[in-house]
């Protein structure tokens, strides 16, 4: 960061300046170099001309001196001498000028000094001494001198030396010129080099600067692009190594990213929390969830969540959840508004954040020790101008502004969530309550139904009792009211009764006489038949073939059967007429087995049956009863037993009834009772027929008659006899397993008591009445129930009445009901009508739909309609619809009669208004079942 900042402008400017400076420097350098060259050349040129001039001057001055000397010698004129001396002086001066000039060229200096020597030598040898000789006029010397002339060689040497000097000097000059040319070339080359170097540097710098700019820009672009592509992952940062405006841009961008990342963090946390909070239905769960999330997000070590309790007078905040890193339960359970810092925060509705944690503030327990939190954050959760909840967080670090912002942001929407959860909880509570109440209602309604059923049955019972009481009352009332009339009538009735009884007796006598006569009248021809047929069967004259003999035997045995039947009828009629004489007397019980054996052993042997007779020892020898009838009963039972037994045995078992088995009633008539059982292993009698077979002319079923013959009178006669003897007959039997008939009789030395006889007679009389009524169809006879009118009503009568009520009710379902048959088929109508009428139902008939409607309209007493569906013109559906809609008879039961094949039509029937349906062909039992269901008076159904 502390790297020196170099901006892009600086970089570019610096580059340009560098290039300009480089150009200027190289220009200056070259300029200098060129000037030097120029100077040097000028110098060379001047020097060269000076040296040439001076050397020429020296040579000229020497020639002048020679010319002066010669002039003087020839002429002796001093003017020439003067020239000489003048030239001698000039020479000297030029020499001294030239010599230092040649200081850079020692070779030339050498040459020059040699030239000087030559000159000096000339002067010394051929100059001054000659002048002296002339002056001294020594002509000889002069002549000699001239003869030898040493000067000439010196001059020639001097000229030659000068020539060499000049050549050398020219060479030196040309060398120098060449050197200058070289230097000139060098400068040219340098110039090119400078230009190239500067160009290269300029390019390098431009590249460096531009690439530093472009690369950084590209980096930034790439980073931004990457961030863009990462969709919301703002974790990436742009890295930059330069320190320029782009870095500024990067820094600014990174700041923006930081900001966005923080936003994102906030948003993510917020959204995740709110999403999680969405499914939460309990405030405790929400609190826990919220705390665990917020402590995680903010790195808090401790947190507590308080929610304002509803429905309290002073606002109280109750802890709903707490969080502590150590897992222990923390935080106070509740606080009131304004109580403590947290209460104050709730009251103000302001976020409270401090790093100045009070001394006594809760210490945070960790696994290793106990520390005090460094900062506390208390945030009230607002909803509709109120603080709905308060969150307290404590951290071992400082809360960053971002974390605080997160908490604040979350809290903004939390209020609504809490409120809606509280509302939802309230709704759930209410729903639950309403469900409980619905269930409760259902339970109550069922209870009520049970109670009402109980009440119903109670009320029915009461009603029945009331009804009975009413009847009794009515009767009593009637009786009280008609007391006198009754007593008056009583006499009359008595007389009438007597007359009736007499009449009855007469009737009975008539009947008995008739029967007796009939028997007689029948017996007379029968006897002839019996005798004659017997005679025939004996075939005395042997003129009958075997078949004819067999016929005669059949005629005889049929005749015998007929005879015994007639005897039975006679006996029975005697019993019924009370004409049968019963003579009680001693019976020797010891003889009984022998007698029975005598009679039945042959039959047993004949049928291959075992015949056992058992008699217990406790049976007294003497027994008092009517021996004739007693034997007759036993014979009847035994012959029955043999008749219906094909294999096995018939047993006669005679025992005395032990005293403890005797009931009070039995003891009243006698203390000595015997029991005679006839046990067979025959076909047996089905349970439901047990009662029936004791009735006259009855056997178990028709098939029995066909197989075993007989009149079926034997048992009923035996029953009647046993009654006359003061006892009775019972039957135990199971179909296929055999039967046991048991005769129970008392020993009656004095015969039957008066009472017994009376009741017997009464019963007989009643039976007679019924029979007479049935046979002679005389309805006018007083009903037996009305006979004992004079007596007070007693319990037994009341009970009898009670028993009659349900019996009457039982008969009543069909009795007097009106059923309308709607059918177009005469045969159906006929059969249904017959069956229904037979059951006491009044039947109306409609042969088509319209007729049905007419009948129903004019006759409101119809209890039920039997509706055939398939009818011409107006079918059953339409008829039913009309009944329900047009006639508005919604409650009238309608039973539809459908064809079995048309199952789908049943629904149509119900839709058309049928109450129920049955299928053709009609099953009578089903028909009556349905009729009972729909004709029964509706009870207590809701």
């Amino acid at each position, binding site marked *: 960061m502390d790297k020196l900042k170099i901006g892009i402008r600086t970089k570019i400017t610096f580059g340009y300046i560098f290039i300009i400076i480089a150009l200027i420097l190289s220009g200056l350098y070259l300029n200098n170099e060129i000037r030097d060259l120029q100077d040097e050349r000028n110098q060379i040129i001047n020097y060269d001309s000076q040296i040439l001039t001076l050397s020429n001057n020296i040579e000229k001055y020497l020639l002048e001196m020679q010319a002066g000397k010669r002039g003087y010698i020839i002429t002796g004129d001093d003017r020439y001498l003067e020239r000489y001396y003048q030239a001698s002086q000039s020479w000297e001066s030029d020499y001294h000028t030239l010599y230092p000039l040649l200081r850079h060229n020692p070779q030339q200096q050498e040459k020059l000094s040699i030239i000087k020597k030559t000159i000096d030598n000339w002067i010394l040898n051929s100059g001054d001494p000659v002048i002296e000789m002339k002056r001294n006029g020594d002509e000889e010397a002069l002549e000699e001198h001239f003869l030898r002339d040493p000067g000439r060689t010196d001059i020639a040497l001097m000229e030659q030396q000068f020539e060499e000097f000049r050549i050398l000097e020219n060479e030196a000059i040309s060398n120098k010129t060449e050197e200058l040319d070289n230097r000139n070339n060098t400068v040219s080359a340098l110039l090119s080099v400078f230009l190239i170097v500067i160009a290269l540097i300029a390019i390098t710098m431009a590249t460096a600067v531009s690439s530093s700019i472009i690369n950084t820009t590209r980096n930034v672009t790439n980073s931004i692009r990457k961030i863009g592509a990462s969709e919301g992952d703002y974790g990436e940062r742009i890295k930059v190594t330069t320190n320029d405006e782009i870095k500024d841009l990067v820094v600014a961008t990174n700041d923006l990213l930081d900001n966005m990342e923080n936003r994102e963090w906030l948003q993510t946390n917020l959204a995740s929390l709110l999403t999680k909070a969405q499914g939460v239905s309990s405030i405790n769960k929400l609190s826990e969830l919220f705390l665990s999330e917020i402590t995680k997000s903010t790195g808090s070590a401790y947190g507590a969540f308080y929610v304002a309790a509803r429905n309290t007078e002073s606002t109280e905040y109750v802890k709903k959840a707490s969080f502590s890193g150590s897992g222990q339960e923390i935080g106070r359970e509740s606080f009131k508004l304004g109580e403590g810092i947290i209460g104050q925060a709730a009251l103000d509705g302001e976020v409270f954040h401090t790093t100045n944690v009070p001394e006594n503030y809760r210490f945070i327990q960790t696994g290793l020790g106990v520390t005090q939190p460094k900062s506390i954050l208390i945030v009230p959760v607002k909803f509709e101008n109120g603080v709905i909840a308060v969150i307290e967080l404590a951290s071992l670090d400082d809360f960053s502004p971002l974390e605080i912002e997160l908490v604040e942001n979350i809290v903004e929407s939390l209020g609504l969530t809490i409120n809606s959860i509280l509302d939802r909880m309230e709704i759930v509570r209410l*729903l*639950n309550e309403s*469900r*409980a109440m*619905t*269930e*409760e*209602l*259902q*339970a*109550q309604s*069922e*209870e009520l*139904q*049970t*109670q009402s059923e*109980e009440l119903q049955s109670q009320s029915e019972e009461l009603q029945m009792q009331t009804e009975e009481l009413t009847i009794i009352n009515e009767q009593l009332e009637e009786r009280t009211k008609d007391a006198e009339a009754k007593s008056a009538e009583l006499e009359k009735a008595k007389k009438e009764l007597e007359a009736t009884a007499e009449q009855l007796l007469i009737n009975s006598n008539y009947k008995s006489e008739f029967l007796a006569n009939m028997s007689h009248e029948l017996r007379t021809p029968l006897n002839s038949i019996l005798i004659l047929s017997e005679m025939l069967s004996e075939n005395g004259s042997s003129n009958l073939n075997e078949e004819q003999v067999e016929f005669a035997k059949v005629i005889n045995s049929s005749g015998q059967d007929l005879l015994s039947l007639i005897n039975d009828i006679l006996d029975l009629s005697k019993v019924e007429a009370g004409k049968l004489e019963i003579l009680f007397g001693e019976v020797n019980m010891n003889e009984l087995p022998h007698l029975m054996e005598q009679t039945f052993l042959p039959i047993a042997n004949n049928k291959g049956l075992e015949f056992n007779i058992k008699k217990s020892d406790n049976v007294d020898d003497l027994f008092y009863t009517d021996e004739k009838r007693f034997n007759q009963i036993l014979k009847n039972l035994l012959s029955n037993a043999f008749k219906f037994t094909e294999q096995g045995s018939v047993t006669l078992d005679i025992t005395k009834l032990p005293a403890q088995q005797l009931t009070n009633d039995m003891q009243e008539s006698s203390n000595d009772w015997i029991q005679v059982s006839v046990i067979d292993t025959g076909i047996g009698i089905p349970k439901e027929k047990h009662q029936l077979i004791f009735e006259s002319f009855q056997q178990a079923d028709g098939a029995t008659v066909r197989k075993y013959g007989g009149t079926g009178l034997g048992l009923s006669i035996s029953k009647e006899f046993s009654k006359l003897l003061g006892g009775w007959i019972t039957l135990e039997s199971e179909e296929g397993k055999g039967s046991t008939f048991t005769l129970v009789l008392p020993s009656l030395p004095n015969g039957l008591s008066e009472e017994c006889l009376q009741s017997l007679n009464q019963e007989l009389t009643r039976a007679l009445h019924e029979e007479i009524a049935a046979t002679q169809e005389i309805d006018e006879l007083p009903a037996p129930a009305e006979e004992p009118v004079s007596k007070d009503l007693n319990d037994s009568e009341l009970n009898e009445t009670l028993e009659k009520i349900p019996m009457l*009710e*039982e*008969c009543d*379902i069909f009795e007097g009901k009106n059923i309308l048959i709607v059918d177009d088929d005469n045969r159906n109508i006929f059969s249904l009508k017959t069956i229904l009428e037979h059951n006491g139902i009044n039947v109306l008939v409609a042969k088509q739909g319209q007729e049905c409607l007419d009948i129903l309209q004019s006759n409101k007493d119809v209890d039920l309609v039997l509706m055939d569906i398939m009818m011409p013109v107006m079918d059953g559906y339409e008829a039913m619809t009309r009944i329900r809609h047009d006639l508005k008879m919604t409650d009238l*039961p309608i039973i539809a009669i459908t064809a079995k094949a048309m*199952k789908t039509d*049943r629904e149509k029937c*119900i839709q058309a208004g049928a*109450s*129920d*349906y*049955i*299928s053709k062909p009609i099953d009578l*039992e*089903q028909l*009556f*079942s*349905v009729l*009972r*269901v*729909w004709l*029964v*008076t*509706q*009870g*207590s*159904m809701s």
Partner: protein
Amino acid sequence: MPHSEHRIVPNIEHAELEIDILLNAVFRLSGYDFRLYNRSSITRRIYNRMRVSNISTITQLTNLIIHDSSFLEQILNDFSINVTEMFRNPSFFKAFRTDIIPRIKDYPEIRIWHAGCATGEEVFSMAILLEEEGLMDKAVIYATDMNEEVLKKAKNGVFSLHKMQAYTKNYQLAGGKEAFSQYYKTDQQFAYFHNDLLKNIIFAQHNLVTDQSFNEFHVIICRNVLIYFTQALQNQVHQLFYESLTVGGYLGLGDKETLRFIELMPKYIEINSTERIYQKVE
């Protein structure tokens, strides 16, 4: 409470205490536990008994219950509400026919538990429904109730003639396919349902409060029984049902009952919400 001689305890607390004692007595004496039954219902039944038998306090009734076994029987009878009908809420049976039968008709065996069957009207209804759907031969209905007396009645299949018109209407509304009269004969007082219907019904005494699961079922029907239980007991019984249902099995409740507030609800889905038919899914 010896320290509270001077405190006036409201009568309602007395009553609560007395009822607690009565129910404990009943439980100890009979084994029938009504302590978790809906208190208000039990309270009404007790007061009803007191009114009918002319008893002035609950304690007196408790006394009678303890010392007179006929009173124990009487109060047990009072507590057991046996309100039922054939095809009760016909729409339930219709829904069962249309929604559930197609899902179970291919099972090799169908075990149905009718919990709290009372006098058996609904069991016979279910038997008729299964018969008409051709499923009677492979279905077994376990019909249970805690009251053996009503079970005896149920086994007879004899119902009052007076109610048959209503039952016929219910049968028709429940989507009955035949003539209802095919299933019974009548005399002057009763309708006798055919014994054929009984062939795959097993009647057994079972107490939902104290007895355990005894088989795994494909269908459990328990209608208008739970309304007499507290929420806690309802949860307990639902746990029993849950344990007794196969995964994918169906639970049918009464029309005023719901699984909605029961802890086990997440393990069921609603098949028919109005008819309260649920399916166990996990």
